[in-house]
């Protein structure tokens, strides 16, 4: 995983609450054995019409969405299925962060493991972001802050120490777990005796 320290980008806004992972990547695109190329199908049923042509009225098809790295979404983003194909699709499309007032547990966990930043903010910040699509914001990981344009004070967002450490240093958790092999083996021996 590439280390991430800061992210500066304009935002794309999908204001709906409860955007589930079936919307992010419909199940028919899960019949794959790799993680590559899922960005093409991101939000497929909102993005394309019945004939597969891009819908002009969907935000991700607009010129303004190109090169945006940050998605702002309504409350409870990523609910539903545990499919990691959801963060894979968002990353493959080009997103590096999702901002919402609430992000579903499994999606959040999957996002962190792939370097997609889940940024949870208070309602006031979210409302401002939803009302100002395309705003250029800065996410700073070492300080866990989000800075909105206009010179206001950076907003703190919750990010647990370990996740931040892994993201900033590009460390993957599997390596961390493998290094705990001796403790895992000791735990197994202890339980076998009990």
């Amino acid at each position: 995983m590439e280390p991430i320290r800061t992210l500066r980008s304009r935002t794309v806004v999908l204001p709906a609450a409860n955007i589930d992972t079936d919307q992010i990547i419909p199940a028919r695109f899960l019949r794959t054995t790799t993680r590559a190329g899922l960005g093409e199908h991101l939000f497929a049923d909102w993005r394309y019409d019945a004939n597969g042509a891009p819908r002009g009225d969907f935000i991700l098809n607009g010129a303004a969405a190109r090169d945006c790295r940050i998605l702002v979404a309504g409350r409870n983003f990523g609910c539903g299925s545990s499919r990691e194909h959801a963060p894979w699709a968002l990353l493959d499309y080009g997103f590096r962060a999702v901002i919402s007032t609430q992000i579903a547990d499994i999606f959040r966990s999957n996002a962190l493991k792939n370097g997609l930043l889940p940024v949870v903010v208070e309602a006031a910040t979210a409302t401002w972001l939803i009302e100002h699509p395309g705003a250029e914001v800065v996410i700073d990981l070492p300080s866990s802050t989000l800075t909105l344009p206009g010179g206001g004070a950076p907003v703190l967002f919750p990010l647990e120490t370990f996740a931040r450490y892994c993201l900033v240093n590009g460390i993957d958790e599997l390596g961390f777990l493998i290094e705990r092999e001796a403790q895992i083996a000791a735990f197994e021996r202890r339980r076998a005796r009990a």
Partner: protein
Amino acid sequence: MQLAPRTMLEKIWDEHEVIPESRDTPAVLYIDLHLIHEVTSPQAFTVLGARGLAVRRPDLTLATLDHSTPTQSAQIFGGAPIALESAAQQIRELERNCARFGVELLGLRSDQRGIVHVIGPELGATQPGKTIVCGDSHTSTHGALGALAFGIGSTEVGHVLATQSLLQRKPKSLAINVEHRLAPGVSAKDLILWIISRVGVAGGTGHVIEYRGAGVRALDMEERMTVCNMSIEAGARAGMIAPDETTYAYLSGRPRVPQGGAWERSLEIWRALPSDAGARFDREVEIDAAAVEPMITYGTNPGMVIPINGTIPERANDAAFDQALAYMGFEAGTKLKDKAVNVVFLGSCTNGRLSDLRAAAAVLRGRKIAPGVRMLVVPGSQAVKKAAEKEGLNAVFTDAGAEWRESGCSMCLGMNGDLVARGEYSLSTSNRNFEGRQGVGARTLLASPLTAAASALTGRVTDPREILRH
């Protein structure tokens, strides 16, 4: 020294901490049972292969085929090719990975194959006190037997394959106290939909739910599984119910439970699992089961749900609500009852067990489904299928005009080609009514097997109590 009272979650958690959590690092949590299937495992095996890692505990890993697997007998047993080549590739990939890494696979023609959350309890692999994970959010089902069971992503599937452990923060606890009993014609599915309507689709985020109280104790094992199954639809990664005599009677004699003296020792350990008197939960919610009615969803998430005779609510200035109703083709302030239904789906890890099929068959016996309605009955496992056939339930369904299939996830998520057409209404016993869940443009109404069967007979959304009265 007297220990502080602990919740069941805390007891199971403490028992599985390889390394406790600290301010800076999550706990290393040991996993007792890892269930895998064809859709969320291939990328994890690829990582193992690329890094030269083995599956650490193949003996604690169990694989099956359910998500993209066909339900037509000819494609399973009849030598016909699997219609979807991409599904066939996933199936072959899991077969290859299991052979290469030494993982037991209940494969395409195994009589123990089925939906991963149906076969775990059925085989007795799911047991009280275990930590159980699977790359599927409905892993919460297994909590019905007093396990801590939750869904994980494919990266975490790789972690468990390689180390039998996960890095986890201890979740918060949410007690849902259910008093009184469900009324006749009202089922566990209605209860969990009712609970979701109270807690909200994000209300359980960050929490593990423990369902408690007389209303839960009165449920049989399969009903408890239905309740725990949809914990994720309330935002909770896991739901659990303390084991009791109902649990032990269910497990007794199943093939993978401890046998002989080991069974007695296990019982002793399991009896100590329920939350201690005075244990503190982070949150508590009170539910009166006697007030629950048959429930049905009208929108595009499981929280958009009303009693079957109720009215779709009105909400001002809520664009997402308006969009959901537009997608469904419904109007606020109207009733769902008597709306036309095109497809009825009976199955899934929520309602694909033998008791679900029996409930639906009791309504359908000797009757015909309405002309023009397509009803698909998909048993949750091959064992459920066999047991249902032994009782003649398959004949009840086919005589009524329904299709009888091999087991799998099928139309719950339409990955295997069992789809609802654009614009059609599907009355489904599954767990998600998301846009497009059962097919592009498909409109899903979630309800119980009783409501599904009653509505299949009339071709309209029907209160099962009206049919049961006759």
